[in-house]
């Protein structure tokens, strides 16, 4: 209760209430997330249960009875006869989890590495940045294959599915952290020369505290830009990696995989297989980015316009 009151009292919440864009975005993002969480309750079908699928329902048009079975689907069906609407809801669970977790993972590693490299400098900096160089060399596909290969050696067969999702998160995260690290390092190099950092050191702040309490807030805006923009990318990357056989099985398509499947029907007239998932992803990305924009401004006390 006290927490809630603190939140409502905070400047952040106040500036949130001032911004209609932020409120709408938050509403959309929340709606999407909740519908993902409660997908089993909301979705009219369970697309992940192969036994419930009827292949003859395949390629049903939205809101039109299927030519063989006469079933009607809100957003139509895909090639397997899966209800697109239900699949979006179910698929979002994987996509959102992997997307957010991967970005978070990349962000945490990247920001910490970047701050340490930038603030400490010298050998530490060289060491971290050369690791970054090595990481940059490897595209996420290869990283994923490596991690997947190693993970496979360690996990019992019936655990593969649970492990797969972490493999996805780690591989996507690993190929993204460098971007954060280098940007943060660049900013930290500039910030650490400023007098307020010297002042903080003077009152006795330890380097870790200076890094996280003083420098971090001042380098956060580019981090937020990259993080919010990478979300959609991570969701798409998940689909790519799943295609390589690394992530979720094809019988449980994520939002990204659904888009990938839909791309195959771009010329053939079954537009709905691509359209609805793509719009969902777009809405998600838009709301998260606009929310990010707001947050960035709100965290900057000077930008109160």
């Amino acid at each position, binding site marked *: 209760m006290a927490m809630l009151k603190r939140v409502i009292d905070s400047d952040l919440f106040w500036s949130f209430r001032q911004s209609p864009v932020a409120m709408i975005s938050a509403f959309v993002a929340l709606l999407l997330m909740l519908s993902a969480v409660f997908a089993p309750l909301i979705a009219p079908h369970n697309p992940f*249960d*192969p*036994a419930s*699928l*009827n*292949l*003859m329902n*395949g*390629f049903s048009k939205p809101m039109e009875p299927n030519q063989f079975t006469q079933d009607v689907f809100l957003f139509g069906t895909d*090639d*397997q*006869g899966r209800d697109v609407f239900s699949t979006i809801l179910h698929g979002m669970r994987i996509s959102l989890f992997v997307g957010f977790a991967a970005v978070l993972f990349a962000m945490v590693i990247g920001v910490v590495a970047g701050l340490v490299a930038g603030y400490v400098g010298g050998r530490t900096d060289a060491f971290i940045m050369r690791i970054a160089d090595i990481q940059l060399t490897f595209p996420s596909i290869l990283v994923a294959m490596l991690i997947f290969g190693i993970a496979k050696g360690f996990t*019992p*067969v*019936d655990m593969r599915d649970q492990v797969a999702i972490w493999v996805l998160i780690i591989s996507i995260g690993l190929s993204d952290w460098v971007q954060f690290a280098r940007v943060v390092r660049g900013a930290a190099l500039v910030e650490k020369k400023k007098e307020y950092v010297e002042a903080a050191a003077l009152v006795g702040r330890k380097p870790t505290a200076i890094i996280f309490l003083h420098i971090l807030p001042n380098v956060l805006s580019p981090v937020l830009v990259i993080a919010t923009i990478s979300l959609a990318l991570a969701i798409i990357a998940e689909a790519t990696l799943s*295609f*390589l*056989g690394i992530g979720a*099985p*094809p*019988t449980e398509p994520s939002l990204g995989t659904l888009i990938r499947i839909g*791309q*195959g*029907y*771009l*010329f*053939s*007239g*079954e537009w709905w297989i691509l359209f609805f998932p793509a719009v969902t992803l777009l809405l998600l990305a838009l709301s998260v980015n606009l929310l990010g924009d707001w947050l960035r401004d709100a965290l900057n006390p000077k930008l109160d316009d």
Partner: protein
Amino acid sequence: ETFRWAGKTDPQTMDPHAVNSAPVLGFLNNVYEGLVRRNKNMAIEPALATSWEPIGEGKGWRFNLRKGVKFHDGSDFDAQDVLFSYQRASAEESDTRSWFAPVSDVKVVDDYTIDIMTKAPNPIFPDSIANWMIMDSGWAETNNAARPDKEKGNFATLNANGTGAFKLTDRQAGLSTTLKPFEKWWDKAEHNITEATFTPISNPATAVAALLSGEVDMINPVPIQDAARIDGKGGTKVIRGIEARVIMLGFGHDHAELKYTSDAGKKNPFQDASVREAVAKAINVDAIRVTIMRGSAEAASQLVSPAMRGYSEANAARTAYDPEGAKKLLADAGYADGFSFGLKCPNNRYLNDEAVCQAVTGMLAQIGIKAELDAMPVQNYWPELRGDNYDMYLLGWSPGTLDHEHPVRFLVTTPNKEKKLGSWNFGGFSNARVDELLPMIQSEIDDKKRQAMIDEVVSIYQSEHAYVPLYVQPLVWGIRDNVTLTQRPDNFFILRWARVN
């Protein structure tokens, strides 16, 4: 007329003996020629040999060579080139070596006659060498390419000197390959092409766009779902056919235990023929055909399509779709509550392979057995199969010899390293009678007797449900309206039959 066409993969080499793969052989058929060639109906017809006949009661075959044939560089074709090409194509470095496994000796009789002796009577030998291409011995030797070199490459990897209707004028590996008609070709040209360029376009959607926008005259393949659109739009059309490739499900016959899912470690139900039959009954091939394949495919009852030699008319009936029957079979076999297992599937090897596997998963789920689908790109797929990491898998087979003996040899006979048998029989299906019949089929000259033996093999593998054949893969090419060409079931595009109007 200039002609531009696009395919999914670039032929990786211009050396006709280095790699035994469809993209390479298909392409080089336009540049090189063999002793025999296939006509528009896949039948054998004379090429560099004008005629051939068996000699010495199954000891071998005599080929009478065509006179006055010139290679693209102007040198003459004679028996020495055939002998050289034999040595080259059967060398250890050659990927085409297996074609010559039945051959015991090759003798030059005179400049234009050559005898190929076989270890045992071999009725289909001329058929099996339709893709054996003849190279000029002098050219190969002067250019240090007397043997194919797959590892390091040599002159013949990037250059070609055949006797075919077209000569290679420009080769940019992976980007484009240009052919021009060979004026001194021995045969009468049917085409009206003055220059032809092949470009690999790996992304199917791009290829479709290129066709629609008129940047290429022909694409192969067309994604099945886009066929309707290409047909519908003025200026382009689709030609369809049935490919030689049969898509089937395979089982881990020799696995004692299930390998995947929570049931891992339990007894492998697929060792029971009635469970395999249940699988066959559970699959609604028609539904797959109508939706995923858009009506283009044809249901398959055996491991070859009806167009192939040795197709068993006697066993043309496919196990009917009967989920109730399947459930009953399962119950009788003691699996009334079903079980779960791992299904491996490639996702970029066959047309809509992953979608088919998903459909299969759904259909199997309806009879109560739960497949956990694991789909992956083909480069990871084969090692998985070789490593026995599956309970059930998807496989497509296209007989290189266009003969039923081919899949029997590779897929049905008991694997045997020494005899080089059953090398793609991953599940280790084994039947003594089949093993016994194969050599007999191979050496039987009388077509009737041979067919009878094949029929027996088919009835064995059908009743055992060694594999569950699903359908014959469709062949869908897209062309511009003003192009005429011939589509052959082996999916080879033969440029000399193409005309641009």
